[in-house]
């Protein structure tokens, strides 16, 4: 048995012991990104059906317009963050082996970060250069 340090409250001792190592911040960020995603997804759907099958010049012209480029960038940032939080929960729910779980959690963060960066780079390039 570990000796209990008198200065530590029971809450301090319990913190960080759950499978997620945290709680409220994850929930809050998940909801904030979800809220942002609602209008951004509506705009993304508009973009999707507008540009599906369009030729290169049309796509470039679309992203030349700053509002379009900025809204799609916001969609990408908010989505990437939301994806990271969402898959984290799925990993924590189904992967019980500690090593695989940590590897998957790291992979999840790197994947979503790369996804966001790749998309933003492409949008900036389309918007400013073509």
């Amino acid at each position: 048995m570990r000796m209990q340090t008198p200065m530590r409250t029971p809450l301090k001792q319990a913190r960080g012991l759950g499978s997620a190592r945290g709680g409220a911040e994850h929930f809050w960020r998940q909801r904030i990104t979800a809220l942002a995603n609602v209008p951004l997804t509506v705009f993304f759907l508009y973009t999707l059906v507008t540009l599906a099958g369009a030729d290169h010049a049309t796509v470039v012209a679309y992203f030349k317009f700053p509002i379009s480029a900025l809204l799609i960038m916001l969609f990408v940032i908010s989505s990437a963050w939301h994806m990271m939080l969402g898959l984290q929960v799925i990993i924590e729910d189904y992967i019980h082996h500690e090593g695989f779980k940590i590897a998957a959690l790291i992979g999840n963060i790197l994947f979503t970060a790369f996804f966001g960066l790749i998309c933003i780079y492409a949008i900036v390039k389309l918007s400013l250069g073509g």
Partner: protein
Amino acid sequence: MADNRMNVERPLSPHLQIYSPMFTMIMSVMHRVTGAALYFGTILLAWWLISAASGAHYFSYVNAFVGSWLGRLILFGYTWALIHHMLGGVRHFIWDTGAMFDKKALEVSAWAMFISSVVLTWAVWIAGYFMMGGRL
């Protein structure tokens, strides 16, 4: 001490396979499944964007795939997953306020969400088809 703990027959919570599927339960599973599918579906978005940024030549290859029957099917499925997951999220926002937790409201909102997701997906693509002048 450790041996005794191993031998205790503890009650287990019921496993997934013994439940008879309920619609609300299926919608809950679908929310997670569409979320995971969208996660991997975004690879296509990154691919499409980077191909457009790479120039007209490479973009034409990706466009040919998007225009193929498989590409169109994936795009349609992706749109449905996005709308379904978004409506499921809105349902969660309603629950966050503490509202619509009674059995009837759960059933009704589950069906409303599912039907709207299908109707909206078709509406988006039909509207898109006319907007593009029947291009795709």
